[in-house]
Structures are given as structure tokens and as C-alpha cells.
């Protein structure tokens, strides 16, 4: 049986401009979560839940870390919750990044943009634990928006790109991805234009992209969150079949 759980807020802190990290306690989710999955959070007095990726877990402590940007009423309300509050959540939802066929020593490229970075951190930790060679390219709008740089550096070679050049390289993540490098697998999460550019640039590599879409149920029952695929089935559901899809499966 799937569960609706309550996650207790343990800590809330601002990591970057408008960017909040929450640590929440819930053993079940901490135990079950796979990199790439998300929780679907109820926000008091809002009809729809908000999907937020799992950025990190600590099984020993039974905690789950979420990182999000304040973009509207829901994320603002989540940012203002006081420690001790219980958040009603569904999860872990979605499929997660496929890892089982990767071998220790494989080279993996991680490409993240903005709030697409958090699920990639959970992923990078898992890859690192399995002994893979990680290279991360993380794009942000500006210096004030950068987060998790040192956290990624501990796991592999990490390059920061900012759109305005106020930190790291200037431009887009695609400017610094070198498609000549040996890559066994790439994983990307970020805004749609970034995913499309990465998909195009790395079309000869095997990769997986994680998508966002406005959701209703978050569990596959309402067909709100679809994405066109080039398979017979046509649309697939991001919340249930995704949020991670093979780069060559989706039509962007």
C-alpha cells in the first residue's frame, strides 16, 4: 500500500537567494527514496500539492532533505513553516534515475540547472557510493543563486556556470559540456530549454532527463502532467512514468 505521511520539519535554512533547504523527518520516505523521486507536499489552504524532489536522505537519522526556490504562494508558505511543524506528504513518488546497469569506474556527467540541481545531488551521492567517476556541470542565473558547489566538489569534478558570468564560467551549461569526453551516461535536470539543448548536444550519448510539469494528483491518476514521447503510447505521465525519461524517448 502507498502512504500519505506526515514529515516533521527539523530544520529550515536559506542556502542562496530565495532558495530554502528543509530537513524533514520521516523514516518511511527516508528508507524508500531513490534518487530522482519526489515528494508531493500539501500546503495549508491550497487545493493542489507541490512536487519537490528529494535532494538528500539520511537513513540513519530517518531524514529527507528538500531544496527549493520560492517562486509563488506554495513555496513561500513552505519557506515560512516553523521547525516542528508536520507537513502532509505523498511519496516517494515517480520512478527515479536508473542506476543498476552502471559499473564502478564508469564516467557519469551530471548537468543541472537552478532548482534542477537538488535531485542530482541525491543521485551524485548514490553514484559516488557505487564508485563512479562524476563530473558535474551546474548552471545558475547569478552568483547569489549558487548552492551545493562544495557538496558536489566532494563527489567529483564540479564546474559552475552562471548566465551573467557573476560566478564561474559565463553562459549556459551547454557552453562547457565537452561532448568529446568519454561519458558512459549523463543525467540532467533543469529548465526545459536547458534539457532540450543538452538532449541535442549529447544526442550520441545515453542519457536521462528529469522533467517538471504542473501536477494534479502526483500519482498518475489525473493525466495532468504528461510529456509527449516517440513511442506508440504517445503521452506519458511525468509523475508516474517519470519524472526521469530516457533522453531519446521524449519529444521536446
Amino acid at each position, binding site marked *: *500500500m502507498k502512504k*500519505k505521511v506526515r514529515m516533521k520539519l527539523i530544520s529550515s535554512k536559506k542556502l542562496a537567494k530565495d532558495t530554502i533547504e528543509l530537513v524533514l523527518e520521516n523514516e518511511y520516505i527516508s528508507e524508500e527514496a531513490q534518487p530522482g523521486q519526489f515528494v508531493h507536499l500539501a500546503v495549508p489552504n491550497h487545493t493542489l500539492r507541490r512536487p519537490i524532489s528529494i535532494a538528500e536522505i539520511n537513513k540513519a537519522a530517518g531524514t529527507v532533505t528538500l531544496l527549493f526556490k520560492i517562486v509563488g504562494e506554495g513555496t513561500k508558505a513552505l519557506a515560512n513553516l516553523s521547525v516542528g511543524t508536520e507537513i502532509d506528504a505523498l511519496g516517494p513518488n515517480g520512478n527515479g534515475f536508473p542506476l543498476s546497469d552502471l559499473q564502478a569506474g564508469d564516467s557519469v556527467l551530471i548537468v543541472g540547472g537552478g532548482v534542477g540541481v537538488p535531485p542530482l545531488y541525491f543521485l551524485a551521492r548514490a553514484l559516488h557510493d557505487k564508485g563512479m567517476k562524476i563530473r558535474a556541470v551546474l548552471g545558475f542565473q547569478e552568483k547569489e543563486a549558487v548552492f551545493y558547489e562544495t557538496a558536489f566538489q566532494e563527489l567529483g569534478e564540479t564546474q559552475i556556470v552562471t548566465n551573467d558570468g557573476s560566478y564561474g564560467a559565463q553562459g549556459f551549461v551547454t557552453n562547457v559540456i565537452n561532448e568529446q569526453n568519454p561519458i558512459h551516461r549523463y543525467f540532467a535536470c533543469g529548465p526545459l530549454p536547458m534539457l532540450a539543448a543538452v538532449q541535442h548536444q549529447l544526442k550520441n550519448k545515453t542519457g536521462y532527463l528529469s522533467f517538471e510539469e504542473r501536477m494534479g494528483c502526483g500519482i498518475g491518476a489525473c493525466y495532468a502532467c504528461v510529456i509527449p514521447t516517440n513511442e506508440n503510447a504517445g503521452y506519458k505521465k511525468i509523475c508516474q512514468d517519470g519524472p526521469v525519461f530516457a533522453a531519446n524517448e521524449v519529444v521536446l
Partner: protein
Amino acid sequence: MIDLQVDLPGLSMKNPIMPASGCFSFGREYSEFYDLGQLGAVIMKAATGEQRQGNPTPRVAETASGMLNAIGLQNPGVEKIVETEVPFLAQFNVPIIANVAGSTIEEYEKVATVLNTSTDIAAIELNISCPNVKEGGIQFGTNPQMAKEVTQRVKAISRFPVYVKLSPNVTNIVEMAESIEEAGADGITMINTLTGMQINLSTQQPLIANKTGGLSGPAVKPIAIRMIYEVRQAVSLPIIGMGGIATAEDVLEFLLAGADAVAIGTENFHNPLVCPEIIAALPEVLKQYGFSSVKEAVGKAHSA
């Protein structure tokens, strides 16, 4: 003991609670949260003659105490539904209502014909909030003549009781209900969504890709209650009420207004356990307000 049993044409239900069409897919996802056997009935997502892809995204938006949706009838087509979805639901032993949609009367007929081949369906619900492509896209459900005709034609071929789902986007809901009754429908379900729109301030365009979407959720409850109250006074068909139900108290309000049973849509997204939770809470709420059965409460607001 509070008696929750409700018997309507084709539907012998141990309680008056069912998920609303389109908010429950074909039950698989919710079956991972609870035993669907607890439900009074289930209403499946709309079936059309052929597979449909539906609308581009975004398909949903949040509104004050509600939401907009424009899914666009994405479904695998009636044959696939009869083949793979109905059998899945049948294992839970609750009456299955098939929601029937189409762009032409002929498509409605086709869907009804294919559904006739299923042994596990208890009733059909005609979703007439669809544009009639042969009549310049006017919705079947906003024109009494068109609604009457599609009802008669489906009624003539379906071997199941036919419930017709009324659209609230009309000047005169009673006139619509009367047409449906004249057409020989076995029951009414109401209300479908109200047409609405939200504009994205950043893009300065309608947020939903389809531009308009259907408004549902608690925001629309007062409209649903008013329409059910009006229809109850005018026609004698049974009514399955819906529109904004989130609690057992809401269910009682619908019963008092004249609904014989109710369906729950949007609230499933907020709380996937809402149906079993309401089923569990309903006896206490009925008792608190002096009722010993669901039947006793039905239409009570009319007996002043």
C-alpha cells in the same frame, strides 16, 4: 446502526460515496492507497471511440479553493478500457460506472455499443460536456435539444442504466434536466466543471494550454448545491451529486439538497484517502444531525 445503503438504477451501493470521473483514472493508482472494495461505486475516466491524446500541457492550474483542468479526454479508447481496465476494477466487487464521451452522436453510440460487451459494468454516465463537432462545437450539454437527442440515441442501444452528467455552464439547469428526463435517462449526475480561465502574469497568456479549463473544487460547491436543489424540485430522476465535496459534512449538505449519492473529484488529489475517510466519518455525521440513514437525509432541505 446508521444505514448507508443506497439503491439507484443499476447501482446497489453499500454507501453513497464514489470517486468522480477523471479524478480516479481507472482505479489502479488509488488501489495502492486503500482497498477499493470500500467504495459505494466507482466512476471511470471518460472513454471515447478511439484512443485520444488529449490537450497539450499545462493542463491544470490552481485557483482559490479550486482548480482548472483541461485534460482533453486522454484515454486509451473504449475497447482497451473494456479489455484491460474494467476487469481490473471488477475484482473489487463494487458497481462500475463507465463515463462515455464523444465528438458526435455516432461516437457516443459506438462507445455504448462496445461497453455493452462488458459483463462487469453497472451503469453508464454520459459526459455531454463535449463539443459537438457536427454542430460547430457547441457542447451537447448546453443545448437541451442536443442533450435530449444524444441521450435518446444512447439509451436506445445501451443495455445499462444511463445517467446523464449535466454541465453547469447553462442559463437554465432545470430545462436541461427536464430534457434528459424526457429522453428517458435513468438518472442525473451533476455538476461537471464550470468553464474558467487563469492568465499567467509572466507570459501574459492563458496559463492552461487549451486556454480555458474546467473549474472544480470547494469554490464551486455553492453552485452545485443550488443546481441540485433546483433540479430535485423539477424532475424525479435520482441524482448523483458532486462539485467541491471534501468532508462528510459536505456529503450531508448534498444529500439535503437532493442528491441520492455523491461523487468526489478534486479532493482526491489533495487527499488520496478522502473517499474511505468520508465513508468512515459519515455515520457519525448523519447521527449528529439526527439521521439514521442516508435515505432519510435525501432532499430534506425541500420539506420546510
